[in-house]
């Protein structure tokens, strides 16, 4: 089902397939180094900086006995000399068994997958998709809440430009989620996502005030207001720091609320919350490992 498959967009996966990936990830929870992908080579082509995603793919591949080569900035490649993406991929696939790519140009990973005969995994393409992040977000929710079905999930922050929120909304729409979109009006979730929810008959609430809905939430997914996505710096200044979560929030939430964040955070979650049972954002980053191990093993045909 997954051998040689590209992982490009959350839209390409059915509920059944997502659940299969999560179930496979669970089998890869153990940290032991094994030889499942011995002799296999992963190329990490990062045309845009990333710490978490690149390190976690590298760690995942190495834990499975595979090797990694690649670059972390395009400055050192022939792309700087004007090489097309198509040619870069045609060359790379001669050397490796699987490609992980981050590229600020939207749709670049899909074009790469058309050029490549080896599987391509999208590690983020601009404002478009970052499917492995969404899968590890689902995995984190399932692991910390025991289920994905019927939860009250709040999304907070930049819901307009935040691709993690968009993809997670699409993914959770398979699971009878009740959504709470918490953002200033100008940064609210685009209508096309709400239309998607309407079509599926799912409930959602839009508000600018977290405390209006915080008591209902099972999960609060916080996002950074991303300066790099704003066309106008003045617009960014207006909204940065609009939500700052600290211990005062604790009186207004369920005792088993889990707070997630795709990281990096700026000031939207105070470090004083880190030690509470609500904070799961570092564990969430750690969950990138079993999920990415599962994906690498699946697309390389080493597990079913």
């Amino acid at each position, binding site marked *: 089902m997954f051998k040689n498959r590209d992982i490009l*967009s959350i*839209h390409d996966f059915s509920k059944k397939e997502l659940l299969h990936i999560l179930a496979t990830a669970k089998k890869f929870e153990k940290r032991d180094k094994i030889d499942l992908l011995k002799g296999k080579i992963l190329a990490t082509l990062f045309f845009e900086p990333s710490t978490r995603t690149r390190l976690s793919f590298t760690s995942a591949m190495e834990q499975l006995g595979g090797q990694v080569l690649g670059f972390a900035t395009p400055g050192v490649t022939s792309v700087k000399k004007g090489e*097309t*993406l*198509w040619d870069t991929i045609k060359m790379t696939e001669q050397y490796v068994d699987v490609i992980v790519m981050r590229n*600020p*140009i*939207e*749709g*670049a990973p*899909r*074009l790469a997958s058309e050029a490549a005969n080896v599987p391509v995994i999208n590690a983020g*393409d*601009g*404002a*478009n*998709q970052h499917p492995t992040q969404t899968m590890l977000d689902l995995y984190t929710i399932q692991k910390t809440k025991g289920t994905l079905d019927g939860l009250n999930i709040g999304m907070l922050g930049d819901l307009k430009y935040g691709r993690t929120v968009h993809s997670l909304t699409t993914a959770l729409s398979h699971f009878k989620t009740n959504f709470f979109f918490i953002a200033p009006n100008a940064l609210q979730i685009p209508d*096309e996502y709400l239309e998607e929810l309407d079509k599926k008959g799912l409930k959602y609430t839009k508000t600018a005030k977290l405390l209006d809905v915080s008591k209902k939430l099972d999960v609060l997914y916080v996002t950074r207001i991303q300066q790099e996505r704003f066309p106008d710096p003045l617009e960014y200044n207006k909204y940065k720091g609009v939500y700052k979560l600290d211990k005062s929030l604790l009186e207004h939430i369920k005792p088993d609320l889990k707070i997630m964040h795709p990281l990096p955070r700026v000031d939207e979650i105070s470090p004083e919350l880190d030690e509470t049972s609500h904070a799961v954002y570092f564990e969430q980053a750690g969950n990138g490992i079993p999920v990415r191990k599962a994906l690498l093993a699946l697309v390389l045909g080493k597990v079913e």
Partner: protein
Amino acid sequence: MKKELKISAIKNGTVIDHIPAKNAFKAAEILNLKGNNNVVSVATNLKSKNHGKKCIIKIGQKVLTEDEVNKIAIIAPEATVNIIEEYDVKQKINVNLPGSIDNVIKCLNPQCITNKERVNTKFSVIEKKPLKVKCNYCERCFSKDIELV
């Protein structure tokens, strides 16, 4: 009383009717009328029972390709295409939007790979009426201001 023809009949060729008048020149562009050496008649701003003002284009000696029919469907979803032989309608084609449209529509997202490298665009038709399409690469949806490649 016999209805008067606004433009004369053609012996052999194609007649495209029910093009919205506002898209007359887009249709001319799609059909590459500029480079056509045969007899071409364009009548626009004609009264139409169902569609306000319409345009009719008659092109001598030409049979539309599938690609051209698909392109016409995007700007004139209600158009009818008649293939004429010896002044008779030999075949009537109702234009039909295909599920996917290759290399016809331009992606309006400047950050899309199709605007950065030489790549043929690919769009999926999400809704036919009103037309809503989704870029297969950057996954953005467009419904208004659709531009052709």
